């Protein structure tokens, strides 16, 4: 037990953890995200109404004691729709960011480690992806594939990985010249082993930060897509789609667009805050940059 405590005291993780906790805003944001995630998981039980239940006598009602955030054009409870919509927005954000992480890490590792001729090929692909305006590309693809939640995650994930590849390639290029990599090669480690056991763990900090920020990016992109009507199709509704609906009734029922937008804003803000906190904690040299 004491040994464990000793190990904890000097562990790298503890140092990061302590430094992260000094950033109050990031801690609050982190707690907010955890609560949001739990609320999302139990949303069907927590929501005051069935999000698809139509109350025709209460169309476009302003927030009241019965309907805390008002109702939409079909008399559905906006709060319940927001809670269930969180499932779509957050799931898309997480999975898309995760997918782009996997693709981006593999691409970045290969580009940095193997060099020519793989490197220019992958970086060419990265240049292409970064030259086509992201939303245009995604809109164009989403018109081919049916806009199911699965396809949207896939498309977002496969277009957003360029960032990771860039960040990781740079780090790997400087890492692979170091002695410990030479040592690993000398004892006969395979390319795969060197990449994933020696290089990747040393390049983790920028990846974790990029991952947090790219969840924020994915949620924003998905909301834009849904706002334009190319997201998950009705009657399901992500936050962006609720804003899109609210736009039509902006004068009569401003609460629809307002509440859904605040939900997106605070969630994305929280991810950005946590990302900043992680960067300061994981890489103190980066602080104040």
């Amino acid at each position, binding site marked *: 037990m004491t040994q464990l405590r000793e190990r904890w005291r000097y562990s790298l993780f503890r140092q990061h953890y302590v430094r992260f906790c000094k950033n109050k805003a990031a801690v609050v944001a982190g707690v907010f995200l955890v609560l949001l995630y739990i609320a999302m998981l139990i949303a069907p039980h927590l929501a005051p109404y069935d999000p698809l239940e139509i109350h025709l006598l209460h169309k476009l009602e302003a927030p009241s004691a019965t309907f805390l955030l008002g109702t939409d054009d079909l008399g559905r409870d906006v709060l319940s729709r927001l809670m269930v919509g969180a499932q779509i927005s957050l799931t898309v954000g997480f999975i898309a960011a995760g997918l782009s992480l996997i693709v981006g890490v593999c691409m970045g590792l290969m580009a940095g480690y193997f060099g020519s001729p793989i490197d220019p090929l992958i970086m060419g692909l990265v240049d292409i992806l970064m030259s*086509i*305006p992201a939303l245009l590309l995604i809109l164009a*693809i989403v018109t081919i594939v049916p806009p199911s939640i699965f396809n949207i995650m896939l498309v977002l994930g496969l277009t957003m990985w360029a960032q990771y590849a860039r960040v990781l390639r740079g780090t790997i290029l400087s890492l692979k010249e170091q002695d410990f990599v030479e040592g690993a090669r000398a004892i006969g480690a395979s390319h795969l082993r060197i990449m994933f056991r020696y290089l990747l763990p040393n390049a983790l900090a920028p990846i974790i930060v990029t991952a947090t920020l790219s969840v924020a990016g994915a949620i924003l992109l998905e909301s834009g897509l849904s706002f334009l009507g190319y997201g998950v199709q009705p009657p399901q509704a992500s936050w962006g789609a609720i804003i899109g609906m609210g736009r039509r009734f*902006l004068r009569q029922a401003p609460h629809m667009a307002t509440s859904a*937008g605040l939900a*997106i804003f605070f969630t994305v803000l929280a991810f950005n805050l946590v990302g900043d906190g992680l960067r300061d904690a994981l890489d103190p040299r980066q602080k104040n940059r």
Partner: protein
Amino acid sequence: MIQYTIRKLLAAIPIVFAITVIVFTILHLTPGDPIRILLGFGVGGYAGGDVGDSMIEQLRAKWGLDQPLHIQYVKWLGNIVRGDMGNSIRFRSPVWPLIKARLLPTVLLALVGYAIAIALSLPLGVFSALRQNSIVDYFSTGFSLFGMSMPVFWLGLMLILLFSVQWRLLPTSGMGDWRTFVMPGFVLGFSLAGGLTRMIRSSLLEVLRQDYVNTARAKGLAERIVIVKHAFRNAAIPVVTIFGFYLAYILSGSVLIETVFAWPGLGRLVFQSLGNRDYPVVQAIILLGAVVVILANLTTDLVYGFIDPRIRYE
């Protein structure tokens, strides 16, 4: 310098080529027959109606849609190289004049957005770097986080709600006198300013820590001269770098912003054309956007040389 420019231009060619293939492929895999949509069958496209199948075939042959994909591609590429971007299926007219008519509103909006972004982020970024951990610094950090976290289209709607519906000060849509530029320009500028403020602050902080800044101070130069003459030029380099990529961001954002404010620009044209399955228009705009971004990145590469004489073009 000239050699470097030429080499960079040559390197851009395969990328542009690859983009043409991607764009063409994507849009031709799109379900929904443009001919049927043109004739008013809707996206699902049920056969028959009072238009005969032979007429549909005729139209298809007229637009070249009956030929194999690779032939359509080669024809399309050949025309593009000659400056002919094809014909819009929906508007029954060449694509280029359509684009040209919407180019100016988008460019104007982008310029206003850039100007507002710089007007907001330059003073904020510089002051927060010079007075680190001051109130201004905290304000600017909060400001940039807000800018990066706010969905642009939602900010637009909230401004409409406030300035048009509530106070009746500004028009909600369209492009006209200066008042129509206020909200769309601010929305675009604000969304850019978040990242830009952070960028300016961090790169200036980095430069202020360098030895040559200490040297300049040590030899007794006024702080103002140290900042303006020694720090700014060096801090500008990373800031200039991302301007090219901001262009891609502006084009993405303009789809949303122009939809919200019914702005008669390219973003709205893309959105409408996607709904109409008007492939040639969408292809041309995406391609144009990508080429412009590539050229902008090339230009920023070259601009370094003027800001930073340390960079030599080998």
